[in-house]
């Protein structure tokens, strides 16, 4: 039967096609034409970033905002000074660490409680039925709404800020752990049953690992919430932190300090979320690589 199948012959166009494939595989360089350079993705990234900074610089130097918009150069110079000068007794690094440590403590506390509770709720219907109604009352409350009560309860020191961060990060942590388990394909438990496992095996071999990606997604949301909360808390009352820098800038009409504070928050928040991504890669090596952060 196989004798009837014609083998493709190595001639004519066939040869050329194979040669092209080889070229592609070896990664032989294509000629650099102007068209290919200006349509290059990374080239366009640079163009847009540089244009943005230039427009900002030009507007900042002009009188359009009457000095209310610091130019990028002014911002960089101001923060270069901040590295050595102190504001309320702390250098820039001190303020960065003040905010970051609050975020990390609140975040760690919240996830240490919220994830196990979420897992328990998803795995046990009785725990679910008891906790869920109360949780649902607190769920839609914006965490910033807790700022006033936090200050009344804990004063204006560290505990009130950490409390607000815990409130803000608790909900997404718990919800994602909960839904992570609820969305597991029930047939995966059947696999464990058929292979001879018991309920404990189902939880350890399926529930936990299958919910990891959802838990990490929850941690990401929590972390960005934590930064929102720490900012809100620091804007209201504090003597340190990046929120404090912004408030000081506002009080002194120093826009380079305000804008610089905003930029640094973005950089620090992005770095901490990068840490969560790295942790996820270590814990879940099976996860498909996702594009972009």
């Amino acid at each position: 039967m196989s004798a009837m199948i014609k083998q493709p012959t190595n001639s004519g166009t066939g040869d050329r096609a194979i040669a092209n494939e080889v070229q592609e595989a070896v990664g032989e360089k294509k000629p650099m034409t102007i068209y290919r350079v200006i349509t290059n993705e990374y080239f366009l990234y640079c163009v847009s970033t540089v244009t943005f900074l230039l427009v900002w610089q030009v507007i900042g130097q002009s009188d359009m905002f009457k000095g209310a918009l610091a130019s990028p150069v002014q911002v960089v110079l101001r923060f270069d000074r901040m590295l050595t000068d102190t504001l309320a007794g702390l250098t820039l690094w001190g303020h960065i660490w003040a905010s970051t440590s609050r975020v990390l403590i609140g975040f760690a506390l919240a996830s240490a409680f919220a994830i196990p509770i979420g897992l328990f709720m998803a795995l046990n219907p009785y725990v679910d039925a008891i906790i869920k109604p109360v949780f649902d009352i607190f769920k839609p409350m914006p965490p910033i709404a807790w700022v006033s009560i936090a200050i009344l309860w804990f004063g204006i020191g560290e505990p009130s800020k950490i409390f607000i961060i815990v409130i803000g990060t608790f909900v997404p942590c718990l919800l994602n752990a909960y839904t992570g388990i609820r969305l597991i394909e029930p047939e995966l438990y059947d696999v464990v049953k058929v292979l001879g496992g018991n309920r404990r095996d189902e939880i350890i071999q399926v529930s936990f690992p299958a919910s990891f990606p959802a838990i990490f997604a929850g941690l990401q949301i929590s972390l960005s919430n934590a930064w929102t909360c720490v900012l809100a808390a620091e804007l209201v009352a504090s003597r340190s932190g990046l929120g404090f820098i912004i408030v000081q800038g506002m009080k002194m009409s120093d826009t380079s300090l305000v804008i610089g504070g905003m930029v640094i928050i973005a950089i620090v928040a992005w770095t901490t979320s990068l840490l969560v991504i790295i942790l996820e890669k270590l814990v879940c090596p099976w996860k498909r690589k996702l594009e972009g952060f």
Partner: protein
Amino acid sequence: MKSADYASSQYICLERDNMNTPKIVCQNISKIFIQKGTQRVHVLQDISLEVRDNEFLVILGPGQCGKSTLLRIIAGLETPSEGTVLLDGQTVTKPGPDRGLVFQSYMLFAWRTVMGNVEMGPKLNGVPKAERRKIAQHYINLVGLQKFENHYPHQLSGGMKQRVGIARAYANGPQVMLLDEPFGQLDAQTRIFMEQETERIWQTEKRTVLFVTNNIDEAIFLADRIVSLEGKLPGRMASVYDIDLPRPREHTDMKFLHLRQMITDASTLTL
């Protein structure tokens, strides 16, 4: 003594091949699901069949005829509303390592490598690491996945995933293999190749096989015997075909095509 029970089933032919004692006996199985508290869905009605030791039995039927439910009952994942399943004379009440199940949608553990998936059965049953690695490696080689031990499921093609599914079921040392439309998600060419592979694996490591499919070609290619179900709910047994074509079979063989025509004509699919 048991034949009195079977007499109620008009389709089954008991006298045939009395040499082997049946491995699996299904006696008058019915299954009614209750949906939303009150709605009763009659899925299976009065199914009686027996599977001989090392027999390759195919359960053939179109979609939504209860054939997967029947397999899940035999696996012990569902309890029949009426009737019993006997495995080596023992009533089946729950899943057990004596039956291996292969799922239509693979159901691999995405967080485990090929090796991790295949060795899961022995691991759950307390086999020491070195030994279960050896068992798993044997079955990984059997299904032709050597060099892919450390790949994660998402790095594999559909056909390769189902090879892992088959190896995982085999590695637990079952006496009976239950396959629930295992190649339903594969493209036609891969499917035919996997059918040939299934036959090769079965010839190498003989087991009693129950294979559920909706594909007539697949059924004739693989089966010692085909049990076809009626094409509507509740699923009832329609007919039983003995396939005595020599193996390996050819899809284009005249006898193959005759059988195909016969089974197609007999199936009562109402849309």
